[in-house]
């Protein structure tokens, strides 16, 4: 029974990773691509790691997989934040489809303060 759940989780993980990669190609600008990269790829990888818990039970491998999930979550969130903030301050604006941008004024204000 537990190996069936493991296989199901493993395949969902692969499918979500695949969707994340397709999103990385299809979306128009950096920020939308980050959305696909953080959400789909993180959950896909977490689901692959969770399938290990079902294959091996709560043993050395299972516990390590759970610890790896929490670390992966934290690093993916912090990485997405750092990348999006860094690209905006570097000067890459939002794509053509965008409707609203509240952050622009703030960044310009900070720029004039520095000069």
């Amino acid at each position: 029974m537990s190996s069936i759940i493991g296989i199901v989780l493993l395949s969902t993980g692969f499918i979500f990773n695949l969707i994340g990669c397709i999103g990385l190609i299809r979306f128009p600008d950096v920020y939308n691509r980050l959305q696909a990269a953080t959400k789909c790829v993180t959950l896909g990888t977490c689901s692959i790691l969770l399938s290990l818990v079902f294959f091996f039970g709560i043993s050395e491998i299972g516990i390590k997989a759970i610890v790896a999930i929490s670390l992966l979550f934290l690093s993916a969130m912090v990485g997405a934040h750092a990348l999006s903030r860094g690209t905006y301050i570097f000067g890459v604006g939002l794509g053509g489809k965008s409707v609203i941008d509240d952050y622009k004024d703030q960044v310009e204000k900070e720029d004039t303060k520095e000069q």
Partner: protein
Amino acid sequence: MKYLTYFLIIFLFWLVLTFELSTANLIVGCAAAFVATLFFGKYFVNNVKKFYQPHRYFWLLVYLFIFIWECIKANLDVAYRVLHPALLIKPGIVKVKLDITSKFGRVILANSITMTPGTITVDIIDDYIYIHWIYVHSTDPEIYSRKISGRFEKYIKRIFE
């Protein structure tokens, strides 16, 4: 007190990571946790009393379940937008006012927002949090504030304040 709490957390993490209860492993873990505390203990949060109040852990558990549910919803949402032939996006950066004052709570809120449907935290400046939204439903600040942070704010307040 602050250093002791930090030491205990690191030691617990070591035990989980190595998953072995031999004497040698315990001694090595103690030494490693001690060195880490010596160097990084001063960066730890100041208000450690909150770690010893059990009702916060209860709300943390409730919050964790809500967070996992939102995270799964986020994935299905983004997957749908990726696979839709017309590419259903209407992106933009909006700014939302924060009600939470503690630094640690703010970090957790920002991280939760990153994992919920279609939103990524870009920056926190003063009392405002800047969020990239993949589909801006409305441009009215009241509505989108409630939609983005309202779900988590009350739980995070109970956990960290």
